[in-house]
């Protein structure tokens, strides 16, 4: 009896979260702020000279496994890609040729991210995922240029899945970021905040406090608690205003203390989606008034609708289900590998592991000509930018890629089958530097892939 009622309650909840009509306003706000933040991000990236520094100047790029075909298209191509990114972000914001804009933004942004894993950031991954979702949700059916172009598009309500999926996405980000913090180093040693916070001792007023061990523990525990619970407090109407103040406070503190760019603002504005449709309708009406737009740009919800079920194509529901399942499972894939996750980084990316470790390393490559037996050293700094070198020196798959790059370089110079060994030392969360890669292994004989990399030296060896 209770089992049946629980089951039916669950079905009802899922049904209302997916198929029932819901006012479009939250989705429209999300579309506008996301487009705006992306446009600002692109301009900022451009203005900082990072297009040139990250994608044009480097001689070599570290592609992702399976995406080796993604290459930097040269200066003209790179600026064109970012031009498309900027235009399509504005298109998303204005709701102009919305689906085309969302698709172009997703493709151009994701392509750029795939060029070089040096620049991997969880927030870029988040942007790619949201951009993909925006290709499917009907966020242009109110308060958009598309509506002016094609008035029949206008709708006051959308099927609930299109708002639910974005909330789910945010929930995954926060909750997994919280789960990732539930480890001994974060909770018991307050690492790496114990290294990072004292570095901010120059800040006025709070500088002294940040240097204390208490501050490191307090920030660690509060951070974990925040990430694990914030979504639930945002979902609950009674706690929501306080939760949102916490969102602003948390992200502004991280913005002040760490060089994390646009991420805090993106999260602060994205979490607005948890607010009620009434809140968003009022917000948009006020925006319309400020911009002197006609009020009917936000159609009123159609109250005559009594069925309470909107048709959702099966393919969309199926796609979204797969999308969520992959994201729910991906952060656990590290369990399939032996060794310490932070040390080997096998299964580390795409898992919302943010600000979890202070890792630094140094690597020299020893090259040997198998015919003459002569050996010499190669310093990666001769071929890589400082940021590429820093990132490579602590990530085994990148060290392997660089070894293969050297093999190819020497092959082009007429030396077949150069032997390339890496002598790498890494320090993780305040442990002293120690050998990272088996320095006897010829890395040119090793292949990248999802298999365990046996040539990573065990952390506690």
């Amino acid at each position, binding site marked *: 009896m209770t089992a049946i009622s629980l089951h039916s309650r669950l079905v009802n909840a899922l049904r209302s979260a997916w198929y029932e009509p819901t006012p479009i306003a939250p989705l429209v706000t999300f579309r506008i702020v996301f487009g705006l933040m992306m446009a600002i991000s692109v301009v900022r990236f451009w203005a900082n000279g990072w297009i040139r520094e990250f994608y044009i100047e480097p001689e070599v790029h570290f592609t992702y496994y399976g995406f080796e075909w993604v290459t930097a298209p040269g200066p003209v191509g790179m600026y064109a890609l970012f031009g498309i990114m900027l235009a399509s972000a504005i298109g998303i914001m204005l709701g102009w040729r919305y689906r085309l804009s969302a698709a172009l933004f997703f493709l151009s942004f994701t392509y750029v991210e795939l060029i070089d894993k040096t620049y991997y950031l969880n927030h870029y991954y988040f942007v790619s995922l949201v951009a993909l979702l925006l290709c499917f949700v009907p966020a242009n059916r109110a308060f958009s240029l598309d509506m002016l172009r094609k008035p029949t598009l206008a709708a006051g309500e959308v099927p609930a899945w299109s708002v639910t999926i974005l909330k789910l996405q945010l929930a995954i980000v926060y909750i997994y970021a919280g789960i990732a913090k539930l480890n001994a180093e974060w909770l018991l040693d307050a690492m790496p905040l114990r*290294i990072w916070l*004292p570095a901010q001792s120059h800040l006025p007023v709070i500088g002294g406090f940040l240097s204390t*061990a208490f501050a490191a523990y307090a920030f660690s525990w509060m951070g974990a608690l925040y990430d694990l619970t914030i979504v639930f407090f945002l979902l609950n109407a009674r706690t929501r205003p306080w939760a949102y103040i916490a969102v602003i406070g948390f992200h502004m503190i991280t913005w002040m203390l*760490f060089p994390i760019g646009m991420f805090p603002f993106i999260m602060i504005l994205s979490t607005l989606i948890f607010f009620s449709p009434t809140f968003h309708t009022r917000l948009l009406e006020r925006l319309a008034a400020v911009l002197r737009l006609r009020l009917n740009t936000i159609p009123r919800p159609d109250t005559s609708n009594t069925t309470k079920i909107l048709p959702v194509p099966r393919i969309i529901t199926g796609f979204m289900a797969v999308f969520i399942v992959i994201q729910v499972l991906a952060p656990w894939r590290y369990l399939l590998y032996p060794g310490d996750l932070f040390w080997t980084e096998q299964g*580390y990316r795409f898992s919302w592991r*943010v600000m979890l*470790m202070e890792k630094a390393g*140094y690597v020299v490559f020893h090259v040997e000509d198998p015919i003459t037996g002569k050996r010499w050293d190669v310093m990666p700094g001769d071929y890589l930018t400082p*940021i590429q070198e820093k990132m490579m020196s602590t990530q085994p798959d990148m060290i392997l890629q660089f070894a293969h790059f050297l093999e190819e370089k020497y092959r082009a110079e007429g030396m077949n089958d150069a032997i390339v060994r890496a002598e790498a030392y890494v320090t993780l969360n305040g442990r002293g*530097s120690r050998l990272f890669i088996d320095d006897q292994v010829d890395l040119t004989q090793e292949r990248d892939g999802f298999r365990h990399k046996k040539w990573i030296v065990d952390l506690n060896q």
Partner: protein
Amino acid sequence: MISAVAASCDKESSNSPGFDRGPLLENLGVNIIVPAYDSLARRAARLEEAAIEFTETRNEQTLGKLRDAWLSAYVAFQHCGYFNFGPADNLIFNASVNTYPISRIKIDDNISSGSYDLNAISSNSAKGFAALDYLLYGENPDAENVVELFDSDDEASARRQYLLDVVEDLRARCDAVYERWSPAGDNYLGTFVSLTGNDVGSATGMLLNGAIQYCESDVRDGKIGIPLGVRSLNVPIPANCEALYAQQSILLAVESIKGLQNLYLGKGKTDGVGFDDYLTALNARHNGDALASVIASQIDLALTKIAAIPEPYSETVEQNPDPAMAAYQELQKLVVLLKADMMSALGILITYQDNDGD
């Protein structure tokens, strides 16, 4: 008893708020960097005087004084090379006073033709300390021979002029970089001590990024590794030794590590706050030991190993490479400690890029 008290003080300092980078920067700037440039500028001025005296009165005695003045200024430079940021970076100081190997062809051509522009970047390999090494010692360092080249050789007069021009260029550059730092000049010192943050553009960030880069490419590789052939298919390149003709490569390399040691320990005219104190305040560890003392010991070890390399280094690299290889490996370990462990413990950033710490 004393050590127990000291240990408990250590514990307290690790928990009590904050290492203030202000006094560290103050000490590095006032006690180390500015005096190092000051000393270099003074010795460069004496070098110029000695060069003028030698060109006017050409004999073995004046040549000896000139050579001494050259070596003295060259030693002073070894302590300055690490400050490769701010004024030195803007003035491209290091490359314009100490590019080596020099181009003998270019120098010989410049002397013969009498037409050259020492300000051109392409002239870096025809001037500076290394060019003087060639001019004052050369293939045949016998004093009588060198005096003859400046006195009665066909090109003696042109050679004297070239010597004076190179020395003047060097002296002017040493003056310029000191002027930029000096509180009486452009007072970059004031800027330096005010940049107390931990980003790339902070004083600590610029100094350490520059100094460690210099330690890697100019000290470990330039002074020891490259002549030894570690970058060239294991084929030694004796011609790439610093102070090749005067055969003072090891003396200069030792001086350069002493410069690093002073910088690390905060030692100038007095022993002040250094990076060792900073690491101690942070209670940074290295596999059970204090990172501060691990680095200090590694600097000592590198110093000992380098000092043990027989001079002339240009012959050692071919005939007896083992002591050089041993020194190179200790320098390698030192670079790992500085670039990975120390930078990580201090939380100093190496780029402006966004970072979410993974």
